[in-house]
């Protein structure tokens, strides 16, 4: 069971280390510092082996820590006095079966930086290292500092309280509440029980237990339940008197059991890890970071497209199409007018390229104006919107990180957007019906011309008073007139219809051009904006997953 627990601990420590690697900048620095400290202490402690169990006697001045220390040891090792505070330096008592200080214990004490050591031969408590800490509540601040130094690195807390002081705020607020998650490695001894009248003792112990519960500590179940679960999962409370020796036996038995079990080290570190896991979980929140969704992508593409001038290009495509359309299917006599206007596409440098040239490889800077600050501002807005939406509901530092990620490749983005517009393939081919309608127009023009020439010939004949040439008639109208007027009318109508179709086609083409540019912009943004954002979101998700994994 110990091996399994040790493996579990190793896994958790590895998780913590992984978390530490991804956490900088993603959890508050103080939490990061505590993560680092927790891991350092844990690995340091584990390196010194699980054979020894370090139990610290801590408590208020005058509660009788040193007396209890002596009582457990069965010898007077620590000075006991009435002058407060009595104990100035932490002393260690190493229990070993053969009465010799082992290397493990010695190196562990070096690690704990405790020089004042005693050894006692004790088979029952073999492996126990008992520390007698100074008080935490006297006017001597150095004592409190020593307690603060040792509490994070010892394996088991044994809080010694007395009937006068067991409800002190200094104990409950500053220590017991802080270590509420460490119930499994906490023992509380109500010392000086002899000063309480026998009939009041149970009530006092119950009151102490109540206060502990209020501090958030689990109280160990006793008797049958303890036997069933097999381990003390909460605080054990003892009543004792170091002076009369009452209850000291119980404490020794408990210490012996804990030392023999050799799981206090692991339990202590597990509790530390629970603690830090709780902190991290609080810091990272429970809103899982998603990915940039399709709709946000589409909006980004649109916004970027607009920022780099998709509208202007689309309009140019539209009028360019109308212009070419007019010269292709317009009424021939007025067709030339269209050519008077410059092709707006060519002016933008996006005109038709020679057939056969592979447009996608030609990096041709368009004569579209370079990315201006207005466009840059519009691009910024679009990027900001995406980042804002991706960070919605996440903790504040994460939102900031996402904004940073979104802007991380900003300089490249401007450039790439520009290049992509230049290489975007705009629809430029001529619709097939142009040729047909063009031919039709010429035909109609020819018909009209024939009619006109005919009329002209007739007119010349009439002017020269030549005999009237018989003119074939269709109904009441003479053919030449019909041909001339009909050809002209038909040409104009076809031209108008063609023009209308070109407007529609131009609009469709503009839409297609806009879509092409939007898509191109989106392709760029996918790499340079959405990519980093999604990476960051993924890392954040990893932080969250690791923090969840760190919890048991």
């Amino acid at each position, binding site marked *: 069971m110990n091996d399994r627990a040790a493996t579990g601990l190793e896994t958790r420590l590895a998780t913590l280390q992984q978390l530490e690697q991804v956490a900088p900048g993603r959890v508050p620095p103080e939490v990061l510092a505590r993560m680092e400290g927790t891991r350092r202490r844990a690995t340091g402690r584990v390196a010194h082996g699980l054979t020894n169990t370090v139990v610290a006697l801590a408590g208020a001045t005058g509660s009788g820590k040193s007396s209890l220390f002596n009582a457990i040891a069965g010898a007077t090792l620590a000075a006991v006095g009435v002058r407060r505070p009595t104990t100035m330096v932490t002393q260690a008592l190493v229990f070993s079966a053969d009465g010799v200080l082992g290397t493990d214990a010695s190196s562990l004490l070096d690690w704990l930086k405790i020089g004042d050591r005693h050894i006692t031969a004790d088979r029952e408590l073999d492996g126990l290292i008992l520390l007698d800490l100074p008080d935490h509540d006297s006017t001597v601040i150095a004592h409190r500092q020593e307690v603060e130094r040792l509490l994070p690195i010892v394996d088991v807390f044994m809080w010694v309280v007395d009937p006068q002081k067991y*409800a002190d705020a200094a104990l409950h607020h500053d220590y017991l509440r802080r270590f509420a998650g460490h119930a499994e490695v906490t023992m509380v001894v109500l010392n000086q029980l002899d000063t309480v009248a026998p009939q009041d003792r149970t009530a006092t112990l119950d009151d102490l237990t109540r206060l502990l519960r209020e501090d958030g500590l689990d109280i160990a179940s006793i008797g049958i339940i303890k036997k069933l679960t097999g381990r003390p999962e909460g605080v054990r409370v003892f009543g004792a008197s170091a002076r009369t020796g009452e209850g000291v036996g119980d404490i020794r038995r408990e210490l012996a059991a804990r030392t023999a079990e050799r799981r206090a080290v692991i339990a202590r570190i597990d509790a530390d890890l629970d603690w830090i896991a709780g902190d991290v979980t609080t810091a990272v929140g429970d809103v899982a970071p998603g990915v940039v969704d399709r709709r946000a992508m589409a909006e980004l593409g649109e916004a970027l497209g607009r920022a780099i001038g998709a509208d202007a290009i689309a309009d140019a495509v539209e009028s360019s199409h109308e212009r070419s359309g007019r010269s292709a299917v317009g009424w021939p006599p007025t067709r030339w007018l269209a050519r008077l206007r410059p092709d707006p596409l060519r002016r933008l440098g996006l005109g038709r390229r020679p057939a056969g040239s592979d447009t996608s490889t030609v990096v041709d800077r368009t004569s579209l104006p370079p990315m201006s600050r207005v466009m840059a501002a519009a691009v910024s807005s679009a990027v900001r919107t995406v980042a804002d939406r991706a960070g919605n509901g996440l903790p504040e530092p994460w939102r900031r990180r996402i904004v940073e990620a979104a802007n991380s490749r900003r300089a490249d983005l401007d450039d790439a957007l520009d290049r992509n517009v230049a290489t975007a393939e705009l629809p430029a081919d001529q619709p097939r019906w142009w040729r047909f309608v063009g031919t039709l127009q010429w035909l109609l023009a020819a018909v009209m011309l024939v009619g006109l020439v005919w009329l002209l010939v007739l007119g010349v004949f009439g002017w020269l008073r030549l005999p009237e040439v018989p003119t074939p008639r269709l109904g009441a109208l003479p053919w030449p007139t019909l041909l001339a007027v009909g050809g002209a009318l038909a040409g104009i109508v076809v031209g108008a219809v063609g023009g209308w179709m070109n407007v529609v086609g131009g609009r469709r083409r503009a839409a297609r051009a806009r879509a092409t540019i939007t898509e191109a912009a989106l392709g760029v943004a996918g790499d340079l904006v959405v990519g980093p954002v999604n990476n960051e979101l993924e890392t954040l998700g990893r932080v969250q997953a690791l923090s969840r994994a760190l919890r048991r």
Partner: protein
Amino acid sequence: LLKAATALDEVCTDLPLSLDLPGAAEARRAAAAARQQLADYVIPRLRDVDAPALVVVGGSTGAGKSTIVNSLVGDEVSKPGVLRPTTRSPVLVHHPATAMWFEGTRILGGISRIRGGPATRSNQLELVARPSIPDTIAVVDAPDFDSVVDANREIATQLLDAADLWVFVTTAARYADAVPWTFLRSAVSRGMHVAIVLNRVPPGAAAEVGRHLAEMLRTEGLGTAPVFTIDEQLLDGGLLPDRSVQPLRAWLGALASDQQARAAIIRRSLVGTIGELAAQADRLAGAVDYQGEFVQWLADRVDDAFRRAHRSIAEDIRNGTVMRGEVLARWQDLVGTGELLKQLQSAIGRLRDRIGAALSGRPQATERFQGAVSHGIEIVVRERTAQAVDDAVGYWRVQPPGQALLDEVRTEGVDLTRPERGLDERTARLVRDWQASVLELLRRQGAGKRRTAKALSYGVNGLAAVLMVGIFAQTGGLTGAEVVIAGGSSAVGHQVLAAVLGDQAVRSLTETARADLERRIGADVLGVEAQRFLSVLERHRPGDRGARLREVGHQLATALDR
């Protein structure tokens, strides 16, 4: 003196210490404590110097305060026990003839009174009349100040602040505890008369513990305080044997009967307390000033950010940035297709364009140009505003209280980290309004020149377009080809404009229109955004409270000297 004390009480009410600066929490507590002390002690004592002296028996939990009070009275007035903390609500024992001093709200106004039974809530004061107490003093059994029950600590502190005299109970196990000594130190600084009772001394330890305690008292400046030692012993019917409390009782009795000594003690602690309060007022003034400075700092940062944004927008407007891109493309449309000249020249052209636009469903080039201008300005303004908001928030975030402010308003549903929701719309309206005002400006200018008024009334849209180009491209931020395109064609327009309005008028018109735009952006967009920050700060501005505090503190000090 009384007036000054009342004034201090007033000034200390709702001190503006709402920002969580370092020391602000302490200052808030100190201000509350000062008010409490003024109401409970200083003001009543100044009004009635002859009221019985309030002797507060205070000390740690389990020190035996109740037992000592009971033993002094000779009756169980406060129930002692083994469960800590025992006394949860205070008990005041007084002579039957002095009831009127304690029944009203003259002192300890925040605590309700109860008589003839134990209090049920912690903020109740049980009054007990016993003839064994002299009629010149009253004894209070206070709750502890160091147990897990926070309410006890508050009441105990309040009682100790209201006391004329402290009987400080400690034990052999406790006398070196840190918490009681912080209270003793405050007693020293107040000039309070303190008697120490060293209770529960184990047999044989009296000499060593007594010596050590005396030494500690000396180093803390309490060398003259009388120390009464009581041995740990079994109680006789809940009371200590008479011989144990006799010295303490005698000492109190002497004080009760010696009017002069009593008056001296009361006077000394009153003077000490007022002196302390005067000093406290100064310290609080410092804290308030600090708040003020910090609020100003935050406001300055907001100002910085938005001023920078305004400068940068103005720059963009002047140097042609806005002209680039889409605007330029539209301008090329307008000029390149000859629409501008048509517009400038004839009404017919304009009419035809209208019809054409109506038929094809496409806006005219001029309108598209103006749309592009609006769009350009809008984007720049929006982005710079967002940037300014980011900057301001960034500055605030550096300081924890600034961060706290942001969080605070977020809980109220205001998200300062992003521009206000209506920003886009407000910006759009701003630009529309501005364009309308440019047209209006042109019309008014033209109206004076009757010769050209007619032509102008047709071409005013085109003229406005020319004017706008002039505004945005004046300093020639455009490069190369752009200058040729924009400048060249605008030069044509400029000439038309100049011909219509006169060169000087065009220049002043350009300047006016630009200044108008900048002013509008500053007031309607940036100003509104900045105001959101400033209005948050406004609630936290301390105003002249710091100065008032100092003044009142000074009044107190001078009144004391007299």
